[in-house]
C-alpha cells in the first residue's frame, strides 16, 4: 500500500519548499485514510491478532496445537486438497483467461460488451453463482441432460459433489481476477512494438512468443497470485458443490468452529494465513514479479 501513498506525498513535498520542520501537507494522505485505517484496525487487525493468540494461548501458552498438526492425517489431507484445488483452478483460469484478455484488448467496438460479460458474474453473489452451478451440474441438471440428449452417456453421471464440480465453479468465479490484470498488462503494450516485430520479419506467432507474452508477464504474475491466494481461502463454493470427503482448509476451519473447537480452528487459520503470506513473499522475490506488483498498483 505504501507504493500508492508515496508518490503523492513526494509530489506534494517537492512542489512546496519546506518551511516548518513538520510539514502538515505530508500528513494529508494519512489523515484522509485515517477513518478506514481505524476501522480496519478495530474490526480486522485486532480480531486476527486475537485469533492468532488463541492458537498459542489455549488454555495456557503452548505450541502443542501446532505440534499436533505434524501428525494430524485429516489436516494433512485437507491441506493437500486445498493446494491441489488452488493450483488446478489457477491454471484453469490462466488457460481460459489469457485468450479472453487478448480478445478484450484487441476488440474495438465489442470491448465494452466483452467487459460486461466478464464482469456480470463478478457483480453476482458467490452464493447465487454456487447455487447456479448446483442446478447446472446436478443429476438432472443441464449438463447431464445435454450429455444424455447427445448420446454421449447412457445415464446421468455424478458431477455435483466431486472435486471437478468445485474446480469448474471456482474457475468460473475467479476468472475475472485473472483476466483483468492480464488485460491491463496487454493494454499497456505499445502497439508500435507489435508492428515493429512484424516489420522486422516476425510472424504473428513469433511476435506473440517473443514480444506480447514476455511483456504481459507482469499481468500474468499478478493475476496468478491473486487467483491462487483467493482460491486458498474459498469456502462457500467447495462446501456447496464439492464432494463431502474433499474438504478444504476453510471448510475444516468452519467445521471446528461449529464444534466450538476454537484453538484448533485458530491454528488452522494461522496456517492458511501463513501459507498465503509465504506465497506472496516468495513471489515478490521472483525476477519480474516484484516489478509486476509495482506496475499493477500504478
Amino acid at each position: 500500500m505504501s507504493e500508492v501513498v508515496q508518490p503523492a506525498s513526494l509530489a506534494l513535498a517537492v512542489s512546496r519548499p519546506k518551511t516548518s520542520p513538520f510539514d502538515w501537507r505530508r500528513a494529508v494522505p494519512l489523515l484522509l485514510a485515517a477513518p478506514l485505517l481505524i476501522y480496519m484496525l478495530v474490526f480486522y487487525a485486532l480480531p486476527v491478532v486475537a485469533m492468532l493468540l488463541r492458537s498459542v494461548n489455549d488454555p495456557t501458552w503452548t505450541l502443542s496445537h501446532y505440534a499436533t498438526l505434524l501428525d494430524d492425517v485429516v489436516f494433512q489431507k485437507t491441506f493437500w486438497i486445498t493446494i491441489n484445488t488452488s493450483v488446478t483452478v489457477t491454471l484453469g483460469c490462466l488457460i481460459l483467461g489469457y485468450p479472453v484478455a487478448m480478445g478484450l484488448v484487441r476488440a474495438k467496438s465489442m470491448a465494452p460488451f466483452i467487459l460486461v460479460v466478464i464482469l456480470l458474474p463478478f457483480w453476482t453473489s458467490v452464493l447465487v453463482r454456487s447455487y447456479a452451478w448446483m442446478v447446472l451440474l446436478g443429476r438432472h441438471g443441464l449438463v447431464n441432460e445435454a450429455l444424455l440428449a447427445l448420446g454421449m452417456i447412457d445415464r446421468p453421471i455424478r458431477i455435483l459433489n466431486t472435486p471437478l464440480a468445485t474446480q469448474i465453479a471456482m474457475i468460473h468465479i475467479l476468472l475475472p481476477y485473472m483476466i483483468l490484470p492480464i488485460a491491463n498488462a496487454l493494454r499497456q503494450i505499445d502497439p508500435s512494438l507489435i508492428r515493429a516485430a512484424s516489420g522486422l520479419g516476425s510472424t504473428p506467432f513469433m511476435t506473440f512468443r517473443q514480444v506480447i507474452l514476455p511483456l504481459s508477464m507482469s499481468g500474468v504474475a499478478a493475476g496468478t497470485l491473486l487467483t491462487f491466494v483467493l482460491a486458498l481461502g474459498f469456502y462457500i463454493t467447495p462446501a456447496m458443490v464439492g464432494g463431502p470427503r474433499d474438504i478444504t482448509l476453510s471448510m475444516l476451519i468452519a467445521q471446528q468452529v461449529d464444534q466450538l473447537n476454537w484453538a484448533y480452528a485458530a491454528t488452522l487459520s494461522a496456517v492458511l494465513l501463513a501459507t498465503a503470506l509465504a506465497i506472496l513473499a516468495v513471489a515478490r522475490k521472483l525476477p519480474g514479479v516484484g516489478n509486476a506488483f509495482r506496475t499493477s498498483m500504478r
Partner: protein
Amino acid sequence: MTGMGTNGAGSGPVSGRGASVTLSNLEKTYDRANAAKAVDGVSLDIRSGEFLTMLGPSGSGKTTTLMMIAGFETPTAGDIAIDGKSVVAMPPYRRNIGMVFQNYALFPHLTVEENVGFPLKQRGVPKAERAKLVAEALELVHLPGYGARYPRQLSGGQQQRVAVARAVVFRPRLLLMDEPLGALDKQLRENLQLEMRRLHADLGITFIYVTHDQEEALTMSDRIAVMNDGKVAQVGSPEDLYDRPDNRFVAGFIGESNFLPAVVRGMEDNIVIAECEGALIRALCPGRPASGEKVTLTTRPERLRFADGVWAGTPPQNRLSVTVTEAVFAGERCRYMLQAGDGTSIVLKEPSSATIRRRAVGERAEIAWSVADTILV
C-alpha cells in the same frame, strides 16, 4: 546475405543494392462513415538507391502511404510494387523492409544487443553470426559496447540509433523511416540528419523518409514528394521545389513565399508578362495562360532587393513600388514587411551589413528582383 530467410520482396528484377518502389494510383479510405480519402491516387516511382522524402503537413497522407509500403495498412485501391513485384497481398513480415518508427519502438524487455539481433533471430541466423552482424550494426551507428544495456538506460538519440541499427542489420534493400527525429531536440536532430545521409551513402540502399519538417527534407533528400490532402503536390529535387514550385501549396509550404495577384497581359517564349499593382512583372511559366486571366505570381523574400541598392550585374527587370510597414533587425538579416499599392503584403529579407542603409517604417521604396526568381503558380 541474400539467402537469408524470408526474402520475398528481394526477388524481382534487381538493380543495385537498393530496391525500387512503384506506387500506382494508391488509395486508402478508412471505413468510417463518409470519411475522406486519407491517400487519394498517389503514383510515385522511387528509384533504386534513392533518398526520397515524403513531406507534408499532418493529415496529408504521408504516414499512411508509408504504412501501406510497410504492409501495416492495406490499400483500398492501387498497387505497390517493390523491384517490380506487387507486394499488396504480402504480410509485413515477408516484405523484408527495414523500418524506423517515430517513437523508436524498441522492445523494452530486450537488451540493445537482443533488439538489434531480433530481425536476425526471426530469419534463423545462427547465434555466432548474429553476434558478429549485431556488433557491425552497432559500429555503424557509433554505439559499440552498448549491447548489454536496456533501451530505458539510453538517451533519446541513442535509442534512435539502436532503432536504425535494428532496421538495417538484416541488410534490407529498402529502409522506411517515419519521422524518426521528431522527438529529439534541434541540435541532436541536425547531427543525426547528417548521419542519416552518411548512412545512406554507406549502405547504398533505398531510403523512404517521412517528415513534416521542410528543412529536414531539404537537407537530406535526393528527391522530395510534397504531399497535401492525400495527393502528391509535387515531386522533385530540393532545388526544384524551392526554385520552381508547381503550385501555391508547394510554394507556401516549402520556405517562405510572397504571393502577388496579377493579370496576364502577354507571353514572350516561356515567360509570362503580367500586370501587378500597376507594374508589369515577368515570370517563368510552363503553360500558356490566356491574356486577361487572373493569376498568382510567387517569389522568395530573400530574392528581393531594394532597387536603389548596389547591383553586381545588370539590375533585375521586375520592379514594384512599396511602402515599408514593418522593419525587424534579426542579426544576420533584416526582415521588412512591405505594402504594394492596393494592400498586397510583401516580405523582403536583406542580409544585414554595416554598409546597407536600414529602411524606416513609412518610407517609400522600389524593390527589384529577377525574372528567374518569379514563378506563376
